[in-house]
């Protein structure tokens, strides 16, 4: 007689849950494979394959335990083990294919095929491991359908998973992959035809089903435990990678900052030389006043006071340079954005002036403090000002003007705008401006704006460009208010 089994709905749900959780963890782990170097790459690949293969296997096992048949069943240990190996190995190939640096649509499809074959291979090997008083055959239509589901859904899941870093989308990918696994399984089961020659007793079946449930819970429990460990490992790795990225970004910001200082050398040296010249001249005035028969104390005091002021001015410029040249990790502190702007202007005003540009400021008073790194924000302001100056180099038919403005922006942000009357930017280049190594200047490196944008992003703000109504461009950025 043909035997039809029934499903324990709770265990079915558990099996799908196992599939989804395993998929999430495996996809998460496989995300580390691509960027990792050498040996670490292989470790992550093996971990992803073990998780995926193990996940599929335990899903299958839990699902089989959810399947209640009126006859006693057992499993062949050898074939069951083989089914696990098949799942691990074939999905491993799938992950290897898609994690290559240059993943193309072809790689995606290929990876999906391997993934699907891994799932199906495990299932049918696992089915072949069944020992009992039954004969097993398959309905060819449902068999084909199970393969299509496995490959199609895996491909879709991989497609979603490998083009995003967004957690929501990753969860979607995990669910799709989970459905690929469980969908394949239950379709495969629908394809299975059991034929039994000697039906057993009902009592045995009930006992078996209780045992089966406990076993299923145990398998699922162990699987979840392993997956949880893997997830934690992945999380640590992600944190470490983020830290490394942040560090690299700070390094790059520093390098571009030093380069900017290099470009400003002439102007900055003038900015230091000017007060020093004033000190020298006032000192000479003092000497002459001292040599008089009746020293003019008031005049001398005034000259000495000028000396002190000028020396402080020179020292302040040097301090600003040192702060910009120093390599430090970003330090988020509470800042007055207007101070940041004024200090940046101190270093570039001579550069601005020597290009025949007049610089105006409209700094709103009473702005709340922002949370940011002083040096990096100064770097952004300097970069925007210098870009503005260069954008106006060819302008001769109108005044060369830069306006820098600070104001309160919507939703707890402070806005800084740098407006020039230069050649402006067409909408095509507008977005490309912010990508690394893109430049419109003959001598530019194309790093300034890309670094500026990443700095502002790291501050939780936004940097964008828009054309001015009459001439030139407006670069604007926002920084969140502290607290």
């Amino acid at each position: 007689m043909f035997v039809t089994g029934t499903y324990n709905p709770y265990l079915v749900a558990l099996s799908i849950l196992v599939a989804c959780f395993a998929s999430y963890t495996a996809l998460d782990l496989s995300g580390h494979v691509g960027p990792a170097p050498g040996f670490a790459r292989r470790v992550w690949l093996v971990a992803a394959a073990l998780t995926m293969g193990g996940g599929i296997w335990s899903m299958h096992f839990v699902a089989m335990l959810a399947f209640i048949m009126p006859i006693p069943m057992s499993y062949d240990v050898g074939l069951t083990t083989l089914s696990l190996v098949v799942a691990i190995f074939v999905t491993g190939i799938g992950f290897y294919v898609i994690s290559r640096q240059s993943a193309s649509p072809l790689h995606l499809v290929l990876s999906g095929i391997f993934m699907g074959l891994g799932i199906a291979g495990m299932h049918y090997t696992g089915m072949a491991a069944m020992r009992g008083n039954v004969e097993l055959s398959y309905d060819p239509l449902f068999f084909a359908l199970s393969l299509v589901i496995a490959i199609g859904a895996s491909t879709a899941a991989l497609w979603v998973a490998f083009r995003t870093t967004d957690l929501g989308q990753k969860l979607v990918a995990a669910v799709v992959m989970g459905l690929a696994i469980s969908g394949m399984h239950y379709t495969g089961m629908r394809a299975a035809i059991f034929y039994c020659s000697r039906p057993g007793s009902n009592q045995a079946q009930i006992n078996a089903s209780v045992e089966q449930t406990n076993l299923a819970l145990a398998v699922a429990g162990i699987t979840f435990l392993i997956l949880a460990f893997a997830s934690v490992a992945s999380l640590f790795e992600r944190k470490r990678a983020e830290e490394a990225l942040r560090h690299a970004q700070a390094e790059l910001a520093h390098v571009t900052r030093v380069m900017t200082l290099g470009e400003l050398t002439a102007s900055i040296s003038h900015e230091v030389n000017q007060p020093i010249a004033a000190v020298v001249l006032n000192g000479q005035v003092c000497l002459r006043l001292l040599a008089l028969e009746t020293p003019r104390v008031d005049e001398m005091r005034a000259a000495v006071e000028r000396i002190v002021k000028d020396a402080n001015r020179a020292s302040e410029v040097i301090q600003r340079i040192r702060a910009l040249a120093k390599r430090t990790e970003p330090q988020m502190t509470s800042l007055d954005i207007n101070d940041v702007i004024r200090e940046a202007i101190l270093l570039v005003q001579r550069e601005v002036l020597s290009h025949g540009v007049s610089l105006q400021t409209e700094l709103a008073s009473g702005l709340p403090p922002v949370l940011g790194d002083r040096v990096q924000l100064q770097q952004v302001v300097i970069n925007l000002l210098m870009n503005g100056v260069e954008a106006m180099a060819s302008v001769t038919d109108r005044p060369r003007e830069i306006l820098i403005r600070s104001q309160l922006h919507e939703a707890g942000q402070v806005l800084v705008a740098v407006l020039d009357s230069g050649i402006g930017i067409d909408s095509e280049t507008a977005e490309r401006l912010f990508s690394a190594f893109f430049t419109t200047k003959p001598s530019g490196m194309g790093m300034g704006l890309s670094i500026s944008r990443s700095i502002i992003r790291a501050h939780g703000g936004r940097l964008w460009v828009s054309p001015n109504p009459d001439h030139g461009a407006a670069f604007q950025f926002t920084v969140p208010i502290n607290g």
Partner: protein
Amino acid sequence: MKDADAIVFVVDDDPSIREAIKSLVRLEGLGVETFATAQDFLRHKRPDLPGCVVLDVELPGLSGLDLQRELASHGVKLPIIFITGYGDIPMSVRAMKAGATEFLTKPFRDQDLLDAIQQALERDRVGRQHSSEIAGLRKRFDGLTSREREVMSLVVAGWLNKQIGFELGISEITVKIHRGRVMNKMGAQSLAELVRMTERLEIPKATDRSAKSR
């Protein structure tokens, strides 16, 4: 302080340098006026005294070199001493070619600046004296009648009284009378002095006419 007989105009956007130069110049017993921008200086009504300008090259708005051009285009002949923080060669060449008396790079020695100022003032004094003399000559020349001017131009070209009389269709006696009046009105002691005066006034001599008539 004695009454200043010359004035130094200081144009620099740096208040400290401005004040220091002001003290320095006053210690020399010279008059001084200071300005933060070229525009301020242009708007200012300058007293009629020998003077010079100490001018910063890098000024906001109108630069020092722009101001130099502006003054030249208005016929102002004030000597200019440039001071600059950059001081590259092309810039100083440009300034000197346009008639600057000195080009000092900051920081400079106070004595160098004072020497330059004295030199510039001397140049302005000579220049002013020269132009006041010219103005006097011009005034005297303007006092001549047109006949006297005709006679004068022929006299300085070396013509004899007889030739002049023939040329202008008047008697030799009349020529002598005109000639005497010219010498008298122009205040010339000799023919040679009269020739020098016409040269300074840049009046064309009558050589062309004499060549044609012969």
